[in-house]
């Protein structure tokens, strides 16, 4: 039988497998476009029931970068930081920026363009005693890896979702490894915020970045919700209670309402534009309200 994931070869999967088969990868959680892509394939292969039936999912594409969230323990235990850095070094990645962006040539013999690994982190709590300058987490003590400080990733450690990545690594060897992706509650926080930043920039209320903020995050919000399972929906209820008063969660609930509450809301218009099909707004929005505690 031809499965969805085996029909076409994916260029990023071998590089992911190179990383996640290493012990040091236990400190890393996959997020970003390829995280969504991997979860989609995993659910499709296992025919798991989701909010929107699988036949209706729009395809999710990913550019050539791998986004990993580092566990806070990486910044507490130096050995773990060394493990992550050594893992990347052994695979040929070099520091491209600030010990939190690593890269290597995408094509043999040409330095640019690069295959990029981005390291991200939630903000440390006061009791964790991890240093952050607001841009990077884990600074000081000469740590070989930092995480891009992400205030909206506050819930990312909670109830991560295991998925299986399998295929051939870059050496052509069959690999099967468990990869953690964020719980949809945590993922939605990050994606709603990113989508809202795009909207604010578009409306002229936020400084324009050299690299424009992307409307792709609106589509990702819809996809995260479309692929939610019943277990995840129940888990979201617990996280809603746990983080209900978190200042970022409060703001993000408002941002979600601005972007997606109506079929004519700016974020939903982007979802329609990018998905190339009519998604059920009522099904998606009602799940967003439940998942974020609106």
């Amino acid at each position, binding site marked *: 039988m*031809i499965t*969805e994931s085996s*029909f*076409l*070869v*994916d*260029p*990023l*999967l071998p590089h992911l497998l190179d990383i996640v088969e290493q012990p040091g990868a236990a400190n890393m959680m996959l997020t970003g*476009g*390829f995280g969504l*892509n991997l979860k*989609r394939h995993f659910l499709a292969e296992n025919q798991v029931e989701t909010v929107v039936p*699988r*036949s*209706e999912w729009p*395809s*999710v*594409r*990913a*550019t*050539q970068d791998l986004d990993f969230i580092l566990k806070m323990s990486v910044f507490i235990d130096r050995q773990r930081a060394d493990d992550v850095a050594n893992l990347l070094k052994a695979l040929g990645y070099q520091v491209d920026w600030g010990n939190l962006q690593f890269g290597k040539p*995408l*094509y043999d013999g*040409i330095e*640019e*363009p690069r*295959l990029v690994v981005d390291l991200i982190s939630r903000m440390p709590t006061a009791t964790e005693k991890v240093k952050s300058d607001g841009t990077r987490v884990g600074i000081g003590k000469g740590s070989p890896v930092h995480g891009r400080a992400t205030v909206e990733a506050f819930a990312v450690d909670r109830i991560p979702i295991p998925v299986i990545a399998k295929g051939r690594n870059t050496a052509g060897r069959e690999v099967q490894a468990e990869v953690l992706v964020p719980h949809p509650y945590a993922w939605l926080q990050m994606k709603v915020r990113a989508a809202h930043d795009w909207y604010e920039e578009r409306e002229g209320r936020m400084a324009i970045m050299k690299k424009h903020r*992307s*409307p*792709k995050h609106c*589509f990702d919000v819809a996809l995260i919700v479309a692929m939610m399972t019943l277990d995840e929906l129940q888990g979201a209820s617990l996280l809603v209670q746990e983080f209900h008063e978190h200042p970022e969660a409060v703001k993000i609930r408002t941002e979600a309402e601005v972007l997606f509450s109506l079929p004519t809301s700016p974020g939903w218009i982007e979802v329609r*534009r*990018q998905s190339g*099909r009519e998604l059920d707004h009522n099904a998606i929005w009602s799940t967003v309200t439940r998942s974020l505690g609106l």
Partner: protein
Amino acid sequence: MREDEIIGWLRKGEFAFAPAELRLVSPPADTDNRVGDGILELKWGERSLLFLIQVKTVATPRAMVEAGKQLKAASDPLGLQPMLIYPYLSEERLLKIEENGLNALDMCGNGTVRTSEVSIWRSGQPNQFKERAKPRNPYRGDSSVFARCLLLREQFESLTELREFAISKTPLNRREGESEGLALATASRAVDALEEFLVVVREQRKIRLIDKSTLLDGLKKDYRPPEGNRILGRTSLTPQEIWARLEAEGATGSFASVATGLSSAASYRALSGVTVLSLYVTDLVRAKDLIPLDEGRAFANIELIEERRPLVYFDARKTADGIWSSPIQCWLELANGGPRDQEASQILLSVLKSGNAVSPQ
């Protein structure tokens, strides 16, 4: 509109460029200069400046630069500023003029004047005149094959060599031994237009690319996806079986197929997550006979798009796994796609800009 008509307008003072006032002094009293069409006085408050003007009706970049050079050479010895005058100047043209350190006005109220004493910029007034004989668009349709050739090789000894290169890279034409769509006249018009846009220069018979960025911008801006009939569905064949059937049919000499740019993006390691194998085929009925499929959107894994013109087959790359679009076609489809596609297009754009060769895997 003719040049003498414009001069007539200037004489009558039917020419506005607020807040400045304009008055023609003609002919120049103290020169036998034959380049200028007169001296124009520009008054702004207490300031008065004199310009040697040249009226022109063709505002292609090359014509503008040439006219500007001649006018500057004539105006400098007279201690006058040079100024070009056209029926209409778009903002893009005004920027080009400014880039070249020239002044220009049009008859619609647009213009740029930059001297040590005044600085005026006005744009956005609509075109009230139609341009004469616009050059052929070298970035669209079959003509764009020649522009694409210049991304693969930046210099050709002659127009004939360029055309032969284009044909050699386009399997449809090579196989049929004819050149439908890639005629020498088409090549000539495309190169003329590229020369007008200052993208290539002709040095005797040689054609040489001089502005790759503008060429890439033009191709991207004027790209139009094929609009032929298409079928989306699900097949139980493996990709290997699909390609084996298509390649066998291609060997008959009257059929061609290639993966679309989007479906080729993974083979160039630019994009992940494309789950539908989308193919351009020259004959949809034959392709459908070769690849049995259940039509419909749900769980679709194959799409067939009929395209008979040579453009999408240009520079197709064959590997053991299939036939993939040129990196140029791949870049154009991504650059005109959704947000993630556009991000991925940057990978191929950097490769095309650098001139490095990449091969599909």
